[in-house]
């Protein structure tokens, strides 16, 4: 036994042999769920691309990624996750470097510079950067746990996170940038960062996204034709300084009045609440304006379609309606493999990637969707379980980040397929077509399993 690298077997409980150790302790529920989902995805990609005449190419690419992903999953399961802890700083630097390389050398595809083209294969580094970022954040907060709630530590974490997000936004890949928020928030939360801070940042996200949506909503309104509050607001959000200063000072004035009234009513309100709220609103406005500049017209259209599908039924709103029809029309047992009309006849776009869940819903009905939801639930439940039973805080934080990521993917993608979320363009992990995403998802599962193998036994 001794010839085996201690890094691999460290903390795995004693059994007769190394192989037996691994087999008995592996979280099979997790691995089989993930593999099951990929097999479903595999079939569905074949079904989705059948009409293109290039189904074999799609399927073989995915098969290659699947095999590669499973190999990586095994490697990452065996590898002791605790070694990442020592290299968390390098993990962050590697992530930033990868993003910079993509920005400089990346290939443009659909107005997004997110791919590295190696002729044989194309890689989307931001898929790997996600994992690197989780490792970094977990490692960062695991260091000096007691100081997790200090302003300095939080500020550094936020600045470093924002740098990563900005680099992704520069590609610009809005959907991948959004993914970082659930990771950051859940890890911050677990690491014991003050609730006030978390609530403030949630409020910040909420106000920013609402301001952003509000501007798009106003852009559809006919109230813009006349000078009014709405048009001033619209101009302010579009980046006109005069209106921005006017609006913000107006809001400040109201805040001051409210604060003054509460003070005089002898409520106990700490003074920094006022400062926090002013900073919150100011930063929300600035980031909403910045967001407007980053969002491409086609993404804006999707958001408009989500707000009101009837405005643009020809393209973006059309998707929202058609994808829901596809899922709903599957009913209990579905229309049968290759028999989906909505998807096979092209009413639902991107059916092999973002909208693959619609295809499952249509061709296998409620049975199919239930099975997919069941497998996803198993993954998330196992993720939570691993987070709870991890040997150390680093493992818990890692598991927390990965689970929140899967949970968010699931929420956004299926919500999008059901037409209750804007079409952000996130794939369904394991199922959707896309090698980088599949490999990255399997690496995540490998890491989770690695934590599970070395779990804390009471």
């Amino acid at each position: 036994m001794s010839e085996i690298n201690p890094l691999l077997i460290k903390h795995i409980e004693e059994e007769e042999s190394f192989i037996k150790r691994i087999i008995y302790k592996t979280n099979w529920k997790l691995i089989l769920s993930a593999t099951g989902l990929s097999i479903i995805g595999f079939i569905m990609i074949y079904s989705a691309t059948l009409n293109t005449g290039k189904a074999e190419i799609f399927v073989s690419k995915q098969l290659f990624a699947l095999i590669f992903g499973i190999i990586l999953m095994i490697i990452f399961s065996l590898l002791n996750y605790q070694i990442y802890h020592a290299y968390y700083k390098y993990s962050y630097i590697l992530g930033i470097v990868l993003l910079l390389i993509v920005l400089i050398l990346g290939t443009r595809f659909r107005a997004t510079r997110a791919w590295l083209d190696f002729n044989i294969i194309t890689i989307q580094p931001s898929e790997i950067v996600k994992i690197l970022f989780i490792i970094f954040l977990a490692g960062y907060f695991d260091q000096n746990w007691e100081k997790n709630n200090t302003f300095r530590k939080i500020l550094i974490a936020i600045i470093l996170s924002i740098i990563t997000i900005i680099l992704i936004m520069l590609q610009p890949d809005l959907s991948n940038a959004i993914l970082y928020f659930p990771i950051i928030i859940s890890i911050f939360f677990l690491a014991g960062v003050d609730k006030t801070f978390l609530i403030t940042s949630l409020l910040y996200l909420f106000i920013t996204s609402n301001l952003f949506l509000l501007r798009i909503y106003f852009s559809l309104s006919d109230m813009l034709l006349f000078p009014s509050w709405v048009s001033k607001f619209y101009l302010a959000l579009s980046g006109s300084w005069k209106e921005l200063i006017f609006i913000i000072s107006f809001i400040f004035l109201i805040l001051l009045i409210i604060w003054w009234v509460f003070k005089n009513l002898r409520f106990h309100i700490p003074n920094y609440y006022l400062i926090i709220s002013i900073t919150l609103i100011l930063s929300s406005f600035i980031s909403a304006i910045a967001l407007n500049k980053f969002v491409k017209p086609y993404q804006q259209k999707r958001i408009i379609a989500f707000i009101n599908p009837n405005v643009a039924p020809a393209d973006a709103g059309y998707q929202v309606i058609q994808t829901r029809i596809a899922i709903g029309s599957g009913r209990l047992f579905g229309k049968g493999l290759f028999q989906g009309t909505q998807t096979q006849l092209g009413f639902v776009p991107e059916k092999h990637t973002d909208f693959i869940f619609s295809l499952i819903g249509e061709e296998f009905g409620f049975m199919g969707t239930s099975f997919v939801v069941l497998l996803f639930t198993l993954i998330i439940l196992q993720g939570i379980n691993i987070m709870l039973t991890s040997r150390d805080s680093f493992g818990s934080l890692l598991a927390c980040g990965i689970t929140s990521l899967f949970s968010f993917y699931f929420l956004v993608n299926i919500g999008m397929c059901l037409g209750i979320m804007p079409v952000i363009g996130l794939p369904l992990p394991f199922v959707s077509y896309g090698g980088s995403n599949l490999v990255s998802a399997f690496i995540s599962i490998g890491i989770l399993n690695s934590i599970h193998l070395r779990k804390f036994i009471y």
Partner: protein
Amino acid sequence: MEWTNSSYIIRKKVQQTFSLLKYIFIFPVVILYLLIIYFQIFRGQYYYNLAEKNRSRTFIKFSPRGIIYDSNGIVLADNRAWMRVYYYPFIDQRITPIQKIIEILPESKKLLFQAMKTQKVISLSKNISREKLFELLSLRHKINGIEVDVEYRRRYIYDEIFAHVIGYVSELNQKEYLKLKDQGYYFNDLVGKSGIEKTYENYLRGEHGALVMEVDAHGIPTKVLRELRPISGNNIHLTIDSKLQILAHKLLVNTQKNGAVVGVDPRNGAIKIMVSCKDFNPNTFITEIDERRKYLNDKNLPLFNRCIQGVYPPGSTYKILATIAALSEDRVSKNWSVTCTGQFKFGDKIFKCWEKKGHGSMDMLNAIKNSCNVYFCNLALKLGIENFEKYSALFGFGNKTNIDIPSEVSGVSPSREWKEKNFNSPWFDGDTINIGIGQGYISVTPLQLAMFTATIANKGILYEPFIVSKITDQNKNIIYKKEPVKKNILKIKSEIFEFVEHSMIEVVRSGTGRAAFLGNEILLAGKTGTAQNPHGNDHALFICYGPIKENTIPTLALAIVIEHGLRGGAVAAPIAREIFKQYLSPEEKDDKDIFIENYKSLEETYVGD
């Protein structure tokens, strides 16, 4: 940091966070699963129907309308294949194919640009000429998205000649569509608007088929889901003799006046000729809206079927009715005679005879032969309005004939009550005298006049006129056959009819109707008429029937009305002559030029009422 080594406070706090995070992670899964249940189980059928609607598109296969034949089996109206060109704008987003299409079909420019905007399939042209179609198809490898579909549309072979008999079809407008869609009509379906096409719409239209195709998101058909073959309409056989109809039409057109010719078979009431001028080309109603507007604005009222909708004073032709009435009511005898001085004074009114010098003393036969007004003014006074009313009704005047063509009018057969009601004034004897010579309040349609003539020809049987003899389905099974309907059998002595026939023969042989004389072997009976009217020149009328042989009923009765034609004997009678000439020697080819020469010479030669 190993959890075992951590402080109690940290562990406690982390445990709390864990339990909260658990719910945060699992919460979206539960919500989404509930939504999936809602969409797939509770709303499943709704979305399934929406999906079915999305993917299937029904292409209507219009059924060919029934074919219309004349009495000899000659096709009068059939169907031809129309090429409809569809353009699918989303197949090719480039501008070049559109430019090419515009080069070939300049009128479709607006439609094409609209289609590019909406990205929906359009029908480029309702009907496209063969040359343009081939031109388009030859460019098919350059222009993507062009599809050709065939549909059947009406064709009227003789253009305007049968326009008023057969009528026309045109596309449903929005209002009609809403009314008729429950009866299986589709938008831009054809519906009969007048004539036979309207009356026998339900027989003619057949049943539309449908082709339900599966289409993809772009609207391109991928496969057939269901097919329902169209069932053609039933074929209609008319009683019209197309040779006579064509001849009558030609003759009427040659007069360059508006008018009507109606020919009836006195043996059963079958209509053999029905021509009304000015007429229209029913083929234009299917495509050209401008043409339709032109017809509507035409002062000559081409859409107006004068045979059944035009009302005219019968003029001197009505004297035959006066004669029959007087003889059968025994008011006068055949030998009762009156001296014609050229005018008849009644009160302060003067009724002039057309012969200014006067006819001198004449009996009934001569009065009919020469169409003496003075004689019939006197006769009218002896008869009185009640008898005119009675005999008019017996011969069908003032009532609709119930012919199977829509929009017939009844004309007016006046009575005391009628005048009381409409003019609020009592009946004067002067009115009766006017009626006696076919003027004044009385007005008849050419068809009524023809039926009147036929009743005299068959000695007292008033038939209901009809124009459709039978209807057959595609397998030539007769599904409808018209049996002659005797509306009225007149109880009038046959001597009276014989006398009338004799005097009408005399009219043609040596009287005012000499222009219709065909020689002593072929006997025709006729009566001319000239109807004064307030709109201009007098209308020329002529009624006649023949051939008259021993113990056989004549086979054709004609009524001819030429609006503002001045004199029946000069304008209308020659038409009757030519029709009979053709009718009685059908093998003889009619030469148009020779005929026109004859016709012109006749017009100059014959003068008379």
